[in-house]
């Protein structure tokens, strides 16, 4: 675990072609400063996994606008302010894997928890399950879903201690905790880094074992 002095330091070494998990539901929990640093850092040909596909012209939308993302894996790209993604998609300049939101979270949880695959109740009989293995178990039909593992996770959180224990705030928690478990390198931006012992051990949401780098922004 490393406390970084800057967002630039926090995103060092992210390679071209990486799969990057990016937290946030809309702008709540989106690690805007880490994304800005990633744009500056220059990694390209990325696969980005995030619930949405960017809002307005900042954060994830800015990364998309720079042409750094080959493929989006998300549940809800189409929003009133998703014009950057919309344009790229209509021009055929970005690939989209659309995943029901519950499968998105559960597939990342599976990656973090060592589950090889799981039978999901969601999407059965719909176009999003086409071509996927199904199985009836105990009278109900399920679709087999595979883990989504990241090379890197970029997570926006509230506070971290110097060991890397992390707490979130309200609904900005969303995908952060599960993404933190699912990536080889988990990078967390927080509003404040506190001393070891300053977080109540009962309240830690992402334990330090999952966290590789922390930066206060």
């Amino acid at each position, binding site marked *: 675990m490393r406390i970084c002095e800057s967002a630039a330091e926090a995103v060092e070494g992210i390679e071209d072609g990486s799969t990057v998990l990016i937290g946030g539901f809309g702008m709540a929990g989106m690690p805007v400063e880490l994304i800005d640093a990633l744009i500056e850092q220059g990694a390209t040909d990325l696969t980005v996994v995030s619930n949405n596909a960017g809002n307005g012209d900042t954060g994830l939308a800015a990364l998309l606008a720079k042409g750094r993302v080959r493929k989006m894996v998300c549940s809800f790209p189409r929003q009133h302010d998703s014009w950057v993604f919309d344009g790229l998609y209509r021009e055929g300049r970005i690939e*989209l894997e659309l995943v029901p939101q519950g499968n998105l979270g559960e597939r990342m949880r599976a990656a973090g928890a060592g589950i090889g695959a799981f039978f999901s109740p969601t999407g059965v009989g719909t176009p999003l399950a086409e071509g996927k293995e199904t199985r009836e178990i105990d009278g109900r039909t399920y679709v087999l879903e595979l883990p989504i593992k990241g090379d890197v996770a970029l997570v926006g959180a509230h506070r971290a201690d110097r060991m890397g224990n992390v707490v979130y705030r309200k609904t900005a928690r969303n995908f952060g905790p599960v993404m933190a478990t699912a990536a080889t390198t988990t990078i967390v931006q927080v509003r404040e880094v506190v001393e070891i012992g300053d977080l109540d051990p009962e309240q830690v949401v992402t334990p330090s074992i999952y966290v590789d780098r922390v930066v206060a922004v």
Partner: protein
Amino acid sequence: MSSAALTKDEMAARVARDIPYGAYVNLGIGQPTLVADHLDADAGVVLHTENGMLNMGRAAVGDEVDPDLTNAGKQPVTELPGSSYFDSAESFAMMRGGHLDVCVLGAFQVSAGGDIANWHTGAPDAIPAVGGAMDLAIGAKQVFVMMTLFAKDGSPKLVPSCTYPLTGVGCVARVYTEVAVFDLTPDGVVVLDTFGTTYDELAERLDVPLTQG
């Protein structure tokens, strides 16, 4: 039978009336959100939002707005006493595990057998987006749909079989429209209530067999 078709607010009130005391409820984006305005505080209904919260309060105004506290439509909201926060995996585990009592969804089409289509028109230039719709469709003990009964071109949206891409199969329990409420049962579609129309008029305009409730 009422003398006129319901307004959106009246439809929302009608849905709210059917939500049992103490139920855990998810209201889908769009029209279903209106239902919240018709739930009395003493109905003990607890609202779930897919982005990770139980006992969500009303829309935030003025100083209450907090960018860290939004609903599934990404609008600022408030919290009520007794609320809880959790991550997205837990929030969807809650749905998918069948712990919600009711969810209320909008729809393009519902079939007599309870299939729902509400995520994609299938138009070739449309950008597809599904969000939590498929999880909600299969994840609540009872799925209510709230929609107009007829599309702009006059075609019915309660159909023998959906032509739009499906969201979920055989999962809708009840359909609330501006002119009628329908129960979708294993024995067929039952008309529970009509507003500004008659059972016979409905039977004529719809392609699905109806029973009078």
